[in-house]
């Protein structure tokens, strides 16, 4: 902290050209902070939406033609499907990382070089995690919507319509959140390249 303050002061005093560079660096970190807040909020809301996703329906089951149908309450919940569980966990990890990196970026303000590289790599890992979680949840969601006749997996979204709709919303929000992480990797690099 002390060293970077010294650096800032000396660069402002030594020449005007350097101070313009510093202004660019500050605006870069402001953009960075906005994007991190966005990524944090989006992944958090995706995790909350999927965790609150629960639907109970009373399904008539015809055991035999002569008897009246049996009414059984069935519940769809996120923890019944491993892919949705994975989706929730990746969103929770990305949300936690978003909050932590927001604090680190606030303290650091884009000064430390090693930390910048580390955060780029961690952002890229979050992109990978979120995209894989989105892919897994979307694949299971498509199976739920369409079923698969080859392996005799019936579609379930005609029964649990609200559950599937809420899951689709959650996947969409999480996808926008992962695009925010992607932009966190890409746009600082473009700005950095202008200075290189």
């Amino acid at each position: 902290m002390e060293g970077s303050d010294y650096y800032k002061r000396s660069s402002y005093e030594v020449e005007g050209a350097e101070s313009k560079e510093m202004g660019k660096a500050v605006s870069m970190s402001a953009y960075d902070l906005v994007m991190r807040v966005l990524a944090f909020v989006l992944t958090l809301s995706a995790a909350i939406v999927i965790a609150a996703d629960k639907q109970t329906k009373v399904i008539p089951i015809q055991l035999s033609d002569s008897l009246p149908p049996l009414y059984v309450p069935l519940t769809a919940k996120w923890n019944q499907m491993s892919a949705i569980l994975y989706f929730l966990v990746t969103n929770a990890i990305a949300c936690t990382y978003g909050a932590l990196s927001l604090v680190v970026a606030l303290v650091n303000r884009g000064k430390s070089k090693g930390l910048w590289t580390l955060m780029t790599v961690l952002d890229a890992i979050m992109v990978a995690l979120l995209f894989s979680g989105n892919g897994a949840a979307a694949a299971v969601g498509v199976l739920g919507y369409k079923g698969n006749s080859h392996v005799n997996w019936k579609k379930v979204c005609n029964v649990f319509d609200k559950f599937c709709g809420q899951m689709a919303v959650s996947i969409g929000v999480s996808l926008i959140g992962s695009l925010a992480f992607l932009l966190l990797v890409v746009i600082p690099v473009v700005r950095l390249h202008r200075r290189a």
Partner: protein
Amino acid sequence: MASTDKPVDTEYSRPTSSAQPHAGVDLFKFDVILRFLLFAASLVSVVVIVTGNETKFLPMPRPAKFRYSPAFVYFVAALSVAGLYSIITTFASLYAIKNPAVRAKLLLHFILWDALILGIIASATGTAGGVAYVGLKGNKHVNWNKICNVYDKFCRHVGASVAVALFGSVVTVLLIWISAYSLHSRVPK
């Protein structure tokens, strides 16, 4: 650590920057190796999943093919794109070793497109992995029976393919890392 370096840099940056125009670290040899690994990984995973077709007689012939599931079709398409991309960028990286003038520009494009390809490979891995897990374990809540007890060879191929694709996404993260590191080392203080 880095903050103690900063005052030294402000004092010494002027002479070094006039002596050499910010060559930065040169990691293009590692870059070529990693890109070739990415190519090999995507090729292997596409070949393995495509050759996994299996027909069982129970007693009617019932084939299992990757194109029966949209998730596996997406997986094959995404990994093919990644393989093509890695061929092109391997040659671009080799060109950069010969011709240092294009390096800064190339590093920028590498990071942009690597991040996109990372998203594609990771989502394909997640998609195929999610469906393969349902196939392996089944799901009693929605009455989806497991199929891997019947189609064992098909499932082994899918599992191996997903594992290799996971390795490919790790390689892509490493590619972004070394590109970001060497681009940052070129920035003047």
